[in-house]
């Protein structure tokens, strides 16, 4: 099956819709949804395709200069196949969900156009056969994210949020590009993923231990590339954009800011895991950052009141998990846990990514249904008792929550086991302990959310009058709920070929720790929140997200705006002054002075004339001959 269908179909859909949505009106929606469905079918077919690593399929030429080729070519292997399935599947469901959710929005065609653009870009990242192509689509998902977060651009908060998201991602891309440049330089101008892997794998010219190996370079390259993932996957310290991104319509949050785009960073890291494995230091840093993000975000989530923000911090936290897994796998590989790493048959980060995609998308869509039902009310303390009004939503939401918390036999349980397992194997106990703590916190804040929003009695009018969402919204929820349950099992893992890592079972310590975390988390949450009308605990530090936004605001003001002001002033005074105004003034002054010679007085003229004669004679007779002329 040609991979160009899922790539190009959304592209044309986006193009047609964005350029002509005035004329298309309702047809735009159909085009977009239709293209997502067809893409999904194509991806299903793709699942059956064979690995194609060496001969990348050339889709489009892009840059072709001398020995350098950077083309739009695709790399089909188990990772891209699996990821394609996730992306197109959840994408399709979100498209369908949006049919209902965005029904009343006037700018619906624009929304669907942007959604198609996103599908195109995300597919591009997944299929990318080389880093440059990945970077291209990397930026494009940034654009579509920008457009979608800013869908309600009239709202100042949305306008600011989309800007923030784009700019924060830009900082990540800054690093990503440097990384690409370093690899480009080191690998003789070749950034094909497969060729890079060959170069970095055993026996390759850049591999650990080979004469061409340079530790600091490899670390630098790995960390630069990782910076890209930090931006896109919203890792500390660039995590600040993701909670704000919840300003976008909820289906967008589900698709982009939970299931797929933010996971692209993890996907990319897994793609370049050979690089991370080549640099132990980088692996440790990556694992540390992932772990730190997971814990920080979980702490912040405990004190959020906006339903979507809770989910957003939860996403952050889970992404931290995945990133930690990437680092941990590399560390474990060094420690000799050979089976843990690599590819066969799966990577724990990817495993968690897949399962997370299903249940988190489902949670977001669920929250969307809730928000929709409550007339765009997002504060959980203004909900309550929704369990009765929205039973389907409640049940699906509960399944998602359970899966996220890692309740045994749900998908999240398996994947979290895998992540904690590899953290355990990494040899760094801190990672494991922090991971377990995060798990406990996760259980805590999700239970809190469920209790406050769905149990008890309605605390506001809108919650009171909430009714179940329409079918187009329920259906995707249900489907995703099913997948949230089964995606940890071979039913799905086999066709995706990439799912369950072999050692999920068998780590006693890990199993005990995660169960313990679950029980502690759920228990304390029930204890604290059951039947409460307002938050019984208030931790300012967590509620205010560790004041990151404030600190960053100061940094931006000082390092950018104030600096810009100073530089502008200096530029005006010195550059313009020294290069332009001073010489002009000097010339003008000289001009004015020479004009004084022309005073109109004849005596002056005769004096100058006579003086000129004497001067010339002096020059010619006495000066020049001595100068050796």
């Amino acid at each position: 099956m040609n991979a160009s269908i899922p790539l190009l179909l959304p592209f044309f859909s986006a193009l047609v819709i964005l350029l002509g949505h005035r004329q298309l009106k309702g047809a735009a929606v159909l085009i977009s949804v239709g293209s997502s469905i067809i893409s999904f079918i194509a991806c299903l077919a793709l699942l059956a395709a064979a690995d194609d690593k060496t001969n990348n399929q050339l889709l489009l030429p892009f840059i072709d200069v001398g020995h350098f080729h950077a083309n739009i070519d695709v790399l089909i292997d188990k990772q891209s196949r699996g990821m394609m399935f996730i992306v197109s599947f959840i994408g399709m469901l979100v498209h369908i969900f949006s049919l209902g959710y965005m029904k009343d929005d006037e700018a619906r065609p624009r929304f669907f156009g942007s959604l198609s653009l996103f599908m195109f870009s995300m597919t591009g990242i997944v299929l990318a056969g080389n880093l440059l192509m990945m970077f291209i689509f990397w930026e494009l998902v940034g654009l579509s994210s920008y457009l979608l977060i800013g869908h309600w651009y009239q709202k100042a908060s949305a306008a600011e949020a989309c800007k923030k998201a784009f700019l924060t991602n830009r900082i990540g891309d800054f690093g990503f590009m440097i990384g690409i440049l370093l690899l480009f330089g080191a690998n003789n101008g070749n950034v094909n993923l497969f060729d890079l892997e060959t170069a970095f794998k055993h026996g390759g010219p850049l591999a650990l231990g080979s004469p061409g190996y340079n530790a600091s370079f490899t670390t630098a390259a790995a960390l630069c590339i990782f910076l890209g993932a930090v931006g896109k996957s919203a890792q500390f310290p660039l995590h600040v954009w993701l909670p704000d991104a919840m300003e976008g319509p909820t289906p967008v949050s589900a698709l982009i800011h939970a299931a797929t785009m933010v996971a692209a960073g993890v996907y990319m890291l897994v793609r370049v895991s050979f690089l991370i494995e080549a640099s132990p230091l980088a692996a440790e840093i990556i694992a540390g950052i992932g772990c730190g993000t997971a814990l920080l975000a979980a702490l912040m989530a405990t004190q959020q009141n906006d339903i979507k923000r809770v989910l957003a911090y939860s996403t952050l936290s889970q992404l931290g998990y995945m990133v930690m897994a990437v680092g941990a796998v590399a560390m474990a590989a060094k420690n000799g846990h050979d089976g843990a790493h690599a590819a066969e048959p799966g990577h724990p980060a990817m495993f968690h990514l897949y399962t997370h995609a299903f249940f988190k998308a489902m949670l977001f869509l669920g929250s969307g249904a809730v928000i929709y039902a409550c007339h765009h009310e997002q504060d959980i303390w203004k909900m309550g008792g929704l369990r009765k009004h929205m039973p389907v939503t409640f049940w699906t939401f509960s399944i998602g929550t359970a899966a996220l918390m890692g309740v045994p036999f749900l998908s999240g349980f398996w994947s979290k086991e895998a992540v904690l397992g590899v953290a355990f194997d990494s040899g760094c106990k801190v990672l494991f302990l922090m991971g377990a703590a995060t798990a406990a916190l996760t259980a805590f804040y999700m239970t809190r959310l469920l209790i406050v929003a769905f149990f008890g009695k309605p605390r506001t009018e809108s919650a009171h009058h909430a009714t179940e969402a329409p079918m187009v919204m329920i259906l995707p929820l249900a489907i995703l709920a099913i997948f949230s349950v089964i995606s940890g099992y071979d039913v799905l893992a086999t066709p995706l070929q990439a799912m369950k890592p072999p050692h999920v079972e068998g780590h006693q310590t890990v199993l005990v720790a995660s169960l313990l975390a679950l029980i502690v988390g759920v228990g304390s949450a029930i204890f604290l929140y059951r039947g409460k009308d307002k938050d019984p605990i208030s931790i300012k530090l967590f509620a205010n997200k560790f004041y990151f936004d404030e600190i960053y605001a100061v940094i931006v003001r000082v390092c950018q705006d104030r600096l810009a002001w100073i530089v502008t002033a200096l530029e005006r005074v010195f550059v313009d002054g020294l290069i332009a105004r001073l010489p002009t003034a000097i010339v003008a002054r000289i001009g004015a002075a020479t004009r004084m010679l022309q005073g109109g007085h004849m005596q002056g003229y005769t004096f100058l004339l006579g003086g000129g004669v004497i001067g010339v004679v002096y020059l010619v007779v006495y000066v020049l001959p001595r100068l050796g002329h």
Partner: protein
Amino acid sequence: MSVFTIEAGLAILGLALLLVEAFKPDISRRTLGLTAIAGTVLALVLFILAPHDTASLPGFIQPWHQLDGLAIFYKGFALVITILVLWLTLECAPYLTRFTLDGKLAEMFSLPLIVCAGMMWMASARDLVTVFVALELVTISFYVLVAFARKSAFSLEAGVKYLILGALSTGVLVYGIAWIYGATGTMSFDGIAKALANPATSKTAALFGSAVLLCGLGFKVAAAPFHMWVPDVYQGAPTPVTAFLSVGSKAAGFVVLTRALDAFMSAGSIIGSEIQALLLVIGALTALLGSLPAMFQTSVKRLLAYSSISHAGYLLLALACRESARFDLSSGGVVAFYLATYLPMTVLGFLGLGIMRANGLGEDLKDFTGLAKRNPLLALLMTLSFASLAGLPLTAGFLGKLFVFLGLADHGCWGALTCAVIAAATGFYYYFKTVLAMYTTEGTDVPALSLSTATKAVAGALALAIVILGVYPKPLQGVLKADKAAVVAK
């Protein structure tokens, strides 16, 4: 008919016109002017047809005159500028007559013919005596012409200044000739060159003489620091006379300078390198002193005077660069080329000024405001003239400057080149200040200004010359190329 006959005929025509005016005072100035023009045009035609070699001259004149390429070029040049000046006089007549004796202009038509003859003789002079008498003929005629609009205080003042300073420079010139003669024992250029190639010649005396002589000639071509008279005199003199001074007199000065320098700087000359250095210094100084004060001018006529000084600077720099195997043109050829390009642009500028004066406008920058609205064609032509004076590419003015710069670079005279470049850059400023004024629309209501067909034709021809010389200079270069062979052969 020999060239000399034509020159003499021209002078006689000048005298004849005077006589006609004296005995038939009511003859219209138009008739007089057109006769003078016709006579000069006829002279030009005859000159073109006449044989162009020294042997064709009458025997008695041959020791003093030569007809080399340079001479032929400058003679033709003198005829052309005379025709244009006569035409310009006709254009300016309506307001000039207000300032002249009894409202007459007869001498304004006859004296230029005599001046023209004088300049033509200067062009072919072989010795300093001939130079002196021809130069003085021209100078004294100009004393009269500058002060001609004697009822105008400006014209009179210009006359006085030109007179005193001119006489001073004549004194310097003669003193210089005396010392050159003393040092070399001869006054013919060939003899001087020969003597200077002789190491026995007293170098100090030769240096002193040539320096003083160059000072005297420098005055005529407006070289710094002998240029102070130029702005005052150009501004005060009647516009046609200014044009004549600026183009004709300057060209004549330069042809003499070229000949003198050919002698001073001939191969093996004991003073060649000093003179070259002097020229570089003076040339650079002239270019700068012409450009810098011009920045603040509000009188366009005075601005053109400064521009004329600055152009003299480039020409002096061109003279400093002796023959190089890499150019088709000798330094004299470059000067000639430059002057040929300088002619149409300067005359066009002055023609514009004259037309404006004749239409009741002044010569100030503010009078130029809105010219594009009054008469777009005139504005376009003036733009062309100023662009060319500034040295904008694709106009005649650029190539001349380019040759000068090329020569300087070829000789490695970086200091002088830098000064020239600064001067040229400043030039851009003041020329385009004027151009800008022409296109400015805001401000006063502007009555239209109409041109006669004949004026249009003359101005158009000049503009065309600017463009053609700017984009297709090959023919002109071909004419001047012959000269280099002669110089090299010498």
